[in-house]
């Protein structure tokens, strides 16, 4: 039986300032209730341009150009202390501007629902020609655009607009005349999720030089649902994403669990590889338009830029043991069960200490904990505090209560075993998985030996249960391939038993 390893990871941020106004729930709900509100008037002047988003240190961490701990060396506020030599290309992914993303949406548009203006299409396609993860064939599929008047007409009829720098450059039409689950708004959300997932999977393939056809299974773990009036969440984003990313040998399925879904997907993928069902399993998720500018009201009130201006996406490949990449310990898995209850202590025990106890490990044996890695600069102005820090405090307090660490060591523990939050508040995106790529790099560079990936989810938001959810898994240094010297197969044992029986029978018959 093989050991599952993390073969590669990719992280993508799509800068979508125009979508904040129209598709983020905070702005769109305000627009419906109070279209002339002071808040809405102030939003445009608080939106960052692409360059500012690229140079924002937490974004550079997300796409892999800096390690999370390096944020400790950058003075706050980070939005005022930009990284001068920041790059669009990341060691583990990329930043994508809004105009190029609209072309990616068109590339993902299987039912001719996305209309883009002619000149916009031509000029954007031309500027994208050097992006290494797109092919000429793909650009050829994005046909000539539409006249601006046609797009305006469709928007007047109910299509959802696509703006760039405040100008209408396209729209997304409804996929059905009356089906509430195929409205233009839902199609925007789903095509955005699919397209950003595709860019993440393409980056995973490109950055890690993975043959696309080696991926056998894709688990998609975003928070959107695709389906029609008869099956609202029928699916399946996974196969749709695999198709566009060129993973021709793959099938797949969607896993849901709010913010915990990516870690569920990571464990499921590891299990599929461990069991030998598939050799290469990709987990992937695109971003959510609804969460753009979610805390924008507080950011505007406190005169900050609207920092939730990027869609987040990621893709991770879990493969058979290569003797080098960090392994996923399927025997050290934590889970919040139905019976766990909702007390914070019980939650942390189920996710952190119970799996460690089963393996004889202490809290300090995990070098880095990846929890809910939201960027605190986004959440603190909204009164939600520093979420990763709150998690690290809880882990430290749990350690102190159990006697694993001394109370006086708690602050040091938090600094050494934690890290600053850096992920966009895109629901499922910040939970556990943003650190998988950095953990892989740090483990392979010998900086750490072991990391725990913790995913938590607020299931009660779906109104089906009051329960909370969470799972965790440990990643650690690959011990190297061990030759199975002296190991014998079942068939060999059968042969040996048969031979002995034969000899014994001969002894009985011949008396010797």
């Amino acid at each position: 039986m093989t050991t599952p390893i993390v073969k590669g990871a990719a992280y993508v941020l799509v800068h979508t300032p125009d979508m904040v106004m129209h598709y983020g729930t905070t702005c769109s709900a305000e627009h419906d209730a109070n279209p002339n509100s002071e808040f809405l008037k102030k939003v445009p002047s608080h939106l960052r341009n692409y360059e500012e988003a690229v140079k924002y240190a937490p974004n550079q961490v997300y796409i892999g150009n800096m390690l999370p701990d390096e944020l400790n060396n950058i003075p706050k506020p980070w939005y005022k202390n930009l990284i001068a030599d920041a790059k669009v290309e990341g060691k583990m992914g990329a930043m994508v501007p809004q105009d190029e993303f609209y072309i990616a949406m068109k590339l993902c548009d299987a039912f001719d629902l996305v209309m883009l203006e002619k000149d916009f299409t031509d000029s954007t396609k031309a500027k994208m020609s050097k992006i290494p993860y797109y092919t000429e064939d793909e650009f050829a599929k994005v046909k000539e655009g539409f006249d601006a008047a046609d797009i305006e007409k469709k928007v007047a009829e109910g299509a959802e607009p696509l703006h760039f720098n405040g100008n209408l450059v396209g729209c997304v039409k409804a996929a059905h005349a009356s089906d509430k689950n195929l409205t233009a708004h839902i199609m925007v959300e789903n095509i955005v999720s699919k397209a950003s997932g595709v860019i993440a999977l393409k980056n995973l393939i490109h950055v890690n030089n993975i043959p696309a056809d080696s991926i056998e299974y894709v688990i998609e773990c975003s928070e959107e649902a695709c389906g029609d009036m008869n099956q609202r969440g029928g699916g399946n984003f996974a196969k749709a994403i695999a198709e566009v990313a060129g993973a021709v040998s793959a099938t797949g399925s969607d896993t849901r669990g709010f913010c915990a879904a990516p870690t569920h997907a990571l464990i499921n993928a590891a299990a599929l590889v461990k069991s030998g069902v598939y050799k290469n399993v990709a987990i992937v998720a695109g971003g959510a338009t609804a969460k753009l500018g979610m805390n924008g009201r507080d950011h505007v009130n406190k005169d900050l830029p609207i920092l939730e201006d990027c869609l987040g996406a990621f893709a991770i490949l879990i493969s058979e043991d290569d003797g080098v990449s960090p392994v996923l310990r399927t025997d050290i898995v934590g889970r919040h069960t139905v019976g766990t209850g909702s007390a914070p202590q019980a939650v942390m025990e189920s996710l952190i200490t119970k799996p460690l106890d089963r393996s004889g490990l202490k809290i300090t044996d995990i070098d880095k904990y990846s929890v809910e890695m939201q960027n605190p600069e986004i959440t603190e102005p909204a009164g939600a505090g520093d979420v990763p820090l709150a998690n690290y405090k809880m882990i430290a307090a749990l350690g102190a209560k159990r006697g694993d660490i001394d109370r006086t060591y708690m602050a040091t523990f938090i600094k050494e075993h934690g890290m600053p939050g850096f992920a966009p508040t895109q629901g499922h995106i910040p939970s556990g998985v943003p650190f998988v790529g950095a953990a892989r790099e740090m483990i392979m560079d010998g900086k750490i030996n072991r990391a725990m990936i913790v995913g938590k989810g607020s299931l009660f938001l779906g109104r089906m249960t009051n329960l909370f959810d969470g799972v965790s898994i440990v990643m650690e240094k690959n011990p190297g391939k061990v030759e199975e010297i002296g190991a014998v197969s079942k068939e060999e044992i059968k042969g040996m038993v048969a031979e002995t029986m034969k000899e014994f029978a001969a002894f009985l018959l011949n008396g010797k």
Partner: protein
Amino acid sequence: MDLENQKRVLELSEKFGKENVVVVLGASEAETAGLAAETVAAGDPTYAGPLAGVSLGLAVYHIFELKEEVDADVYDEQCGMMEMVLDVDAIGAEVKTIRDQYSKF
């Protein structure tokens, strides 16, 4: 405070009477605890939910303020860890300020 929770508080106070309802908070920050206390005592300050403009005047406490009222083992199991993590004094002071100002029961 979450709009759904505001609705629940309103319904419970109508069903059992405002004088018979005590709201126990579990918020992790003084500011959020204060906002939730204000919502159930004076009305929703954000004017977004069912308690906008509805001054229930309910008695409201943070669970940290009720430590002496709870079985010690249960409290330790449910709140012991968070007591080590959060700013207990600041949360308690914030909720008490709101309670003294707006609670009628």
